[in-house]
């Protein structure tokens, strides 16, 4: 949002509304289309005041587009309103079109001055109109049919060459196969990433809530937990994939992370048991 101030003559400024403008943006969807298709140009203004309508928005120059409709609405909430104006457009000219920003003229309630708020501009790529049917028919007859004939000739030639190369060859005796079994690739036991291992070691050395939270964050990262997912969500969607140690570690870490300070040490001790099982390699595995 850009602000150009002052701009309005004092007499005109008296007719403006006082607003705390928090957001004034413009977007287009889609930004790439053909002539004849439609796009929705959306202008959003979020203000601190409760408004039923916002008439002070000046639309940008929309030459090169034909307007098919315009819809305005304001959603009010406890603190503020979100006013949107959605214009349905169809381009009439091909090429990259830059739609300049919309403007909103108001008294800036924080400074008491008449200002003009300007939204961002958007660039729309307009391709030519869809090709008519007779064009495709001409293309088929003029280009695709000769190409298909050429392809058929090439396929016949390749088949003939393949048959010549697979003609019978003289038999050559091969050496006897070795009786020794083929070497078995040595596979290292799956080990926890060093990050978790190191974090658990740090937690063992210094059992604190901060270190515990770091372990919890790493565990959540490993199983791909989203920000809004709780422990119940993760278990419900089987994020641990049946890994009992990981599941136990996740649960114990979660419980410890929200335990009271007085019980934190005990909770960390309980969490360390499954955590250490998780990060230590299985017995007999090559490390």
């Amino acid at each position, binding site marked *: 949002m850009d602000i150009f101030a002052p701009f309005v003559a004092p007499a005109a400024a008296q007719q403006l509304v006082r607003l705390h403008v928090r957001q004034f943006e413009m977007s287009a969807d889609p930004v790439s289309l053909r002539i004849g298709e439609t796009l929705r140009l959306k202008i959003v203004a*979020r203000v601190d005041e409760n408004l039923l309508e916002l008439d002070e928005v000046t639309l940008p120059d929309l030459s090169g587009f034909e307007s098919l409709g315009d819809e305005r*609405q304001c*959603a*009010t*909430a*406890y*603190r*503020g*309103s*979100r006013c949107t104006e959605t214009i349905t457009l169809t381009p009439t000219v091909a090429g990259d079109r830059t739609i300049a920003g919309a403007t909103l003229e108001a008294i800036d309630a924080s400074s008491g001055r008449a200002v003009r708020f300007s939204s961002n501009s958007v660039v729309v790529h307009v391709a030519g109109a869809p090709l008519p049917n007779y064009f495709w028919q001409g293309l088929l007859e003029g280009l695709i049919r000769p190409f298909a004939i050429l392809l058929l000739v090439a396929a016949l030639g390749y088949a003939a060459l393949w048959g010549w190369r697979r003609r019978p060859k003289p038999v050559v005796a091969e050496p006897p196969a070795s009786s020794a079994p083929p070497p078995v690739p040595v596979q290292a036991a799956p080990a926890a990433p060093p990050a978790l291992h190191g974090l658990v070691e740090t937690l063992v050395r210094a059992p604190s809530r901060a270190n515990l939270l770091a372990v919890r964050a790493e565990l959540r990262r490993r199983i791909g937990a989203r*920000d*809004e*997912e*709780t*422990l*119940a969500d993760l278990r419900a969607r089987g994020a641990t994939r049946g890994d009992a140690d990981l599941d136990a570690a996740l649960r114990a870490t*979660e*419980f410890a*992370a*929200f*335990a*009271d300070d007085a*019980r934190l040490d005990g909770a960390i001790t309980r969490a360390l048991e499954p955590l250490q099982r998780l990060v230590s390699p299985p017995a007999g595995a090559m490390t």
Partner: protein
Amino acid sequence: MADTIVGQRGVLESLVQALIAGGHIVLEGPPGLAKTLACRALATAVGGSFKRVQFTPDLLPSDIVGTRIFDQRSGEFTTVLGPIFANVVLADEINRAPAKVQSALLEAMQERQVTIGPQTFPLPEPFVVTATMNPLDSEGTYALPLAQMDRFLVKVLVDYPGPEEEVRILNRFGGATPALPENVVSVADVLAWRDQAYAVHLEPRLARYAVDLVAATRAPHDYVERGASPRATLAIAALARARALLDGRDFALPDDVRAAAPDALRHRLAFNYRLLTDRVDPERIVADLIAGVPTP
């Protein structure tokens, strides 16, 4: 209670959580879904006094809180206490009474005392109002204003049972009406649980999460006209503590806070007319608002 009510596990859990959290409960659902039975089962399970008031359009405030009558023999006014003086009060079909009766009840719910004439009478402890509402028959009803709905700690939605549950309902209630559980816990037990619930630890990050959940309802929204009050934050915290206690923990988890949010928020939001014209389910809005807040 689960021995009496078939299915509706979530409803029963919400009832018990609200009882422990020390709040009032409103149940909303179509007729015939055991809303009243659930409230009665809760009341009889808690070994305290229980009163039921059927809300009707001709009900008067004095029918709820009580009144003063003139005793001709003694020549003095005496006070007759109303049905609100009970540990568990069932306000059946609360939206069928006019606003002044609702106000009398809801004032008592908030203040936990009733003033009749010159005297003020404290209500017994625990004091829980369980109200039922039917969302389908809107004719002849008086919708509760938002400020009054805010007094209820939770609003629990009661939905239709599944086919298997309905078969079990048929088996259980096809013959003689089964007895309700009586005196499963005492009033003293409930008060002790409340003390334990107050002591459940709520991490500062969880408190912040509860605040963020409520704040999400106040952001400008296409369908929400007005968000929830700070009372909703208190309700979420109290319910989360109760849930943790029922799960045998002395600390709450993000799961407890989020599970408490729908019951604490759904009746505290004011939706605009677009919700009706666009035929949007308000439960979907509440769920989306909650899902959009990152957990701690």
